[in-house]
């Protein structure tokens, strides 16, 4: 029983990460129909950047976080102005399915390359925000950082869901993704929404990187794998529903932990990916993508 609970806690922790990345992807995809494949790299930059600022440049932890998040917001802003603005507002460049994947894929390559050049190939971890030994209830142990991650994931997932569900701004954001022209004729600036939400989700992902890094540590190559699982989590939410993406991410994380605990510690990732592969291929309707065309 305690093994089960410990596995559950571990699974929820990694699942929270997948889920929140899925939510970040989903909310942005909803606005502009582009998948943010760089979301994991923003998390990586959050973790490594903060670690570097605090440990090497001796900034106070809080200041390090603020500087790092500001820098990441700036990177997101620059990318939007230099690339997405021309691609999506001005109609330059590649169209259609290419724009769904490949612009942010290019960003991901750049961020990894830059991180490698600046920070090298070491493993970094930002300092713990809530330090201390693991919380223990009888045999049940859970890392403090894990508690923070899960709580933050649930709070931000709920916030994103409520934003889309209840606010005028959220509806306007959804309208941008439904019809760019339709949103512009009522005075919604679709470019502004895309930019704002891109920056917010980039900073959110970076924050999660900072909070989570004491548990696993990050290298410059940590990004793509988390992004990919985030894409899968978002995929189970039709790429559009942040709330459902968090749930899907949590489920994937728990499945991964359980496979590792009860089946095989070596092959747990292989089994997980294979299972996801099988689900996507055999039952694509769970993705909610193949709606009957009107």
């Amino acid at each position, binding site marked *: 029983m305690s093994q089960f609970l410990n596995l559950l806690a571990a699974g929820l922790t990694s699942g929270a990460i997948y889920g929140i990345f899925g939510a970040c992807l989903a909310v942005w995809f909803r606005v502009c129909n582009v998948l943010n494949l760089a979301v994991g790299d923003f998390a990586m930059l959050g973790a490594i950047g903060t670690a570097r600022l605090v440990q090497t440049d001796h900034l106070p932890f809080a200041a390090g976080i603020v500087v790092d998040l500001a820098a990441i917001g700036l990177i997101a802003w620059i990318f939007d102005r230099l690339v997405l603005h021309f691609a999506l507002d001005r109609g330059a460049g590649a169209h*259609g*399915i290419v724009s*769904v994947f*490949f612009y942010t894929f290019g960003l991901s390559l750049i961020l*990894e390359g830059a991180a490698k050049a600046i920070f090298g190939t070491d493993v970094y971890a930002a300092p713990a925000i809530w330090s201390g030994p693991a919380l223990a209830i009888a045999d049940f142990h859970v890392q403090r950082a894990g508690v923070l991650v899960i709580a933050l994931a649930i709070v931000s997932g709920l916030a994103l869901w409520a934003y889309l569900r209840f606010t005028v701004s959220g509806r306007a954001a959804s309208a941008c993704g439904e*019809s*760019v022209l339709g949103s512009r004729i009522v005075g919604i600036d679709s470019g502004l929404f895309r930019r704002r939400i891109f920056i917010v989700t980039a900073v959110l992902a970076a924050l999660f990187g900072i909070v989570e890094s004491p548990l696993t540590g990050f290298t410059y190559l940590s990004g793509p794998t988390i992004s990919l699982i985030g894409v899968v989590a978002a995929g189970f939410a039709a790429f559009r529903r942040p709330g459902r993406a968090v749930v899907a991410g949590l489920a994937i994380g728990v499945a991964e932990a359980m496979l590792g605990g009860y089946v095989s510690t070596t092959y747990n990732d*292989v089994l997980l990916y294979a299972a996801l592969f099988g689900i996507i291929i*055999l039952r694509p309707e769970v993705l909610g993508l193949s709606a009957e065309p*009107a």
Partner: protein
Amino acid sequence: MSEPAATERGTIGSPADAAAAAASPTGSPGAAGEAARRVRRHDPVPLAAAIGITVAGGLILAAMNGSYLGLTVTTGVGYAVVTVGMVLQLGYAKQLAFSQSVFMGVGAYGVGVLETKYGFNSLESLLAVIALAAVASLLIGAVVTRAPGLALALATLLLPLFIYQLATYSSYLGSFSGIDGVLPFWSGPDYESTLVRTGLISVLLLGLAAGLVLRVMRSGVGLQLMAMAEDERLGESLGVSLRQRRLEVFVVGSVLAAVGGAVLASAQGLVTPDVLSESAQITLLLMLFVAGRKSVAGAIIGAIVIEYLTTSTSFISTNLGIIEGIVLLVVLLVEPDGVAGAVDRLLGRRTDRWAASLRSWSAGRFRAGGGGNGARNAA
């Protein structure tokens, strides 16, 4: 029946004529029509391309005479076989499958295992690998290609992830160090001549691959692929069997990827799990996109040039990610059809892409946001 329409010809042409005539280098529509009406019965391009690639590539490799550069080019040729398949699969048929690195691994590990463990010679192992890849891609493709576009993309993105891990865990496949001692395609008395001879066979395989892909793209089946790539429901209504064509495209792309993997393994004499990794897939995509995802010539040149740049120049190989990313973004923004598209434009073979947006506006059919996918302003 043509009489009533003939009198109305003026209303058919109307204003876009000006744009089309300005944009099209073929000049006046009437003359162009007459010229193009002579449908050519025999299409010499695929065969000419196959022979041209083999001869030119062979001469170049012979001139390099087994130097390190020759090895790089031969490796590049291996990648080029893969990207030529991707031109058909991703560029022409728009099948969003990201499984080429996996099949590249099937080819490379296939020849490695067969030659080192079962004593196959290089020709036997190459043929066996082609058969293996065909069977494997038929089986996988039969399942995978049923999924709609984005689901296929998602699933095939996951494929390299766990296949890579499987390979690194498997002692049969040599874990992280892979398999050493893969035979060259055609060995000679010394290292240099072996490399040249292997290179010649590789170039021949590339020529065959290019000829095959060009022949398919320019055939009636290619026309069907064109229609279904534009719109699957349109394709269906024209009598195109989507399932059959998707599967065929998947198999051709996968088999060529396996052949490319076999070339890589034979040229380098070893296989490492790297051929299976995500980064191998990323490299392949870059090679395809930078040079032009719809152009066979572009894909070949892109593969060889990028392979050369990444292995030969230390500045580029250390800053690979940044440079690749920037190049990819610039290509996508400035010339989505890659370098090949830019060349076409310079030679005046391409019409102005604004003609497309003009058409959208004049026909009043900027995308009615059905489902929102790809809904964008035409301006």
